[in-house]
């Protein structure tokens, strides 16, 4: 299995007629993803055509979901309208909204997050690469690709990957695939300070997924989400976990004032997060090149096979 999405998951694309949305809709169709609808207000009734696929476009998420049975939306709409696009998914009762859009005002996300609290729809992102559950075809085709990640570097397997950063996720995926292993699902939760699904949320899902045998947790400086996830792992997760934190050398003092340091607490530096990882039994990758090897070391210590 996998988490959140399977190769059978039906997805719709909000912003399918924009250049960026269109390009990635094409790549997802090529990957074999069940991309069944597009949404662009005012363009309902048209079709998105690519390589023999003819995807209907609707004016609203409600209409698209009702007509096609799509349960997941991927959002490519421009920043000023992205918050609204997320709320529309929630109102339509989708299972999952994945917001790729980068540059949404923080205030918009504060309001959106408050408005969707307690609702059925899970949000991933914004400012994230999305998620991939690899398929069994050549270059992992036949899987479910939601967002902008390169599908071909994946391979169906048993490693779960969760990260805030896109390119670092790809590094980890590529390393795992290069070792002949594969991924259950790779999830990019996005780098914005206010986002939907957290590291911990994804870790819990991986922990419950019988098909995930090991986990790579990739974090960054700032906030305390990685620390929260690590503490939970220490108490609850039996699976081998490797971790990496980016930003050890990022320049401090690029911000004015110091209130951020107080609210962030003492645990938002790379060194502090790495120390918590170690204390919680997470095998730390010393460099990004070491991520897959770190997981192999963690698996060996627990006597777990990742293949």
């Amino acid at each position, binding site marked *: 299995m996998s988490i959140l999405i399977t190769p059978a998951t039906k997805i719709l694309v909000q912003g399918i007629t924009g250049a960026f949305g269109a390009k990635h809709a094409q790549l997802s169709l090529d990957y074999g993803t069940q991309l069944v609808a597009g949404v662009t207000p005012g363009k309902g009734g048209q079709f998105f055509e690519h390589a023999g696929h003819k995807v209907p476009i609707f004016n609203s998420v409600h209409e698209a979901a009702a007509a096609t049975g799509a349960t997941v939306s991927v959002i490519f709409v421009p920043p000023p309208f992205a918050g609204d696009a997320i709320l529309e998914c929630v109102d339509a009762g989708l299972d999952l909204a994945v917001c790729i859009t980068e540059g949404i*005002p*923080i205030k918009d996300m504060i309001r959106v997050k408050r408005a969707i609290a307690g609702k059925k729809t899970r949000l991933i992102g914004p400012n994230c690469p999305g998620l991939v559950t690899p398929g069994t075809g050549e270059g992992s085709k036949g899987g479910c690709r939601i967002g902008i990640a390169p599908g071909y570097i994946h391979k169906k397997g048993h490693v779960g990957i969760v990260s805030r950063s896109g*390119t*670092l996720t790809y590094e980890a995926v590529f390393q795992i695939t290069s070792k002949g292993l594969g991924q259950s699902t790779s999830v990019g939760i996005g780098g914005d300070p*206010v986002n939907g699904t957290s590291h911990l949320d994804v870790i819990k899902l991986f922990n419950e997924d019988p098909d995930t045998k090991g986990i790579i947790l990739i974090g960054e400086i700032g*906030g305390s989400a990685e620390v929260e996830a690590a503490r939970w792992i220490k108490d609850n997760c039996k699976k081998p976990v490797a971790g990496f934190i980016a930003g050890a050398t990022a320049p401090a003092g690029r911000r004015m004032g110091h209130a951020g340091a107080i609210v962030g607490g003492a645990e938002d530096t790379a060194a502090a997060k790495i120390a918590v990882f170690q204390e919680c039994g997470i095998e730390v990758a010393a460099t990004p090149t070491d991520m897959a090897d770190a997981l192999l070391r963690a698996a060996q210590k627990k006597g777990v096979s990742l293949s």
Partner: protein
Amino acid sequence: MNIHEYQAKALFEKFGVPVPKGAAAKTQEEFDTALATLPEGPTMVKSQIHAGGRGKGTFTDGFKGGVKFCKTKAEAKEIAGKMLGNTLVTLQTGAAGRKVQTVYFTVASDIKKEYYLAVLLDRASSRPVIVASTEGGVEIEKVAHETPEKITKVLIDPAYGVADFQLRQVIGALGLSGTEAKNAAKLLKNLYTMFWETDAAMVEVNPLITTPAGDVLALDAKVSFDSNALYRHPEIVALRDLNEEDPKEIEASKYDLAYIALDGNIACLVNGAGLAMSTMDIIKHYGGNPANFLDVGGGASKEKVVAAFKIILGDANVKGIFVNIFGGIMDCNVIAEGIVEAVKEVGLKLPLVVRLEGNNVAKGKQTLAASGLSLVSGDTMADAAQKIVKLVA
């Protein structure tokens, strides 16, 4: 985006947050006009730069203090003359310091007691938070570390805004009563409104003061804005001061490149912020020092890569270049062509290590090899980082 204290205080006044009367001057000629708006008597002179620690800073000509108390306006004018055009070095400016291009005169207030007040985002709860302390005018990190019980945090529900009982919570924690409490409540409510309405990332008042007359005033003001929201605030964009930004960073922003100058000697060109950050980390890990953070983004064109190359080569400290690309969707050959083009245009005498991986990587490597450029290729990030560190050593 950051703004100057005098600009922040103008915004404070607009939103009904009381500040001491003040006026800014950008030239010697403007000193008299500015001072004429203030009453005779004790006056503060404050250097306007985008960095903290001004009061304890030293100018490069040896003059001490970027913020000065003066007994008279005449003295204030003399002191301002020593600050304007002079370069101020503080704990936050780095050794190069910042040239003072504006001075700000304010009435020197009678201070009864100093407090700390800020509004910003609490990431853990995804809500705005008001932070207040009875310990104002000092380093607030130190207070948070040594006496955390002296800091009060109140989370605000964005669906409702700041509630009156929450104002009472903050004011109670500050130990204010009577007229002071009433004035502080009004100030706090208005400060929160300003934070929310202007899409501020952070508003910090240190110190907030009470006066013997019962007034409550923001004696200092640090305000930064969420750059993602600037498109809906042209009046705030107009406050941007390019003098406070690195010219290379301004040039980079024209090409939509995320660039931050650092003080090392290995220039980095990377796609993706996380990868760019960890490229800096890995250089340091192997004993080198990164000269910059540079993220060319996911959709880099040949022109963007050429522009990026020119910007990193504009840094005189650079002794070597590390290109680290994981082309997911991005075509590695586009990067390779950009590198070849850039070197043709600007020439290259420095060692260059390139690590390309991902989409169309074979073609990219072929382009680099066929160009006849003298570059070193790295297989993994670790391999490439070790090579560039060795080459600049």
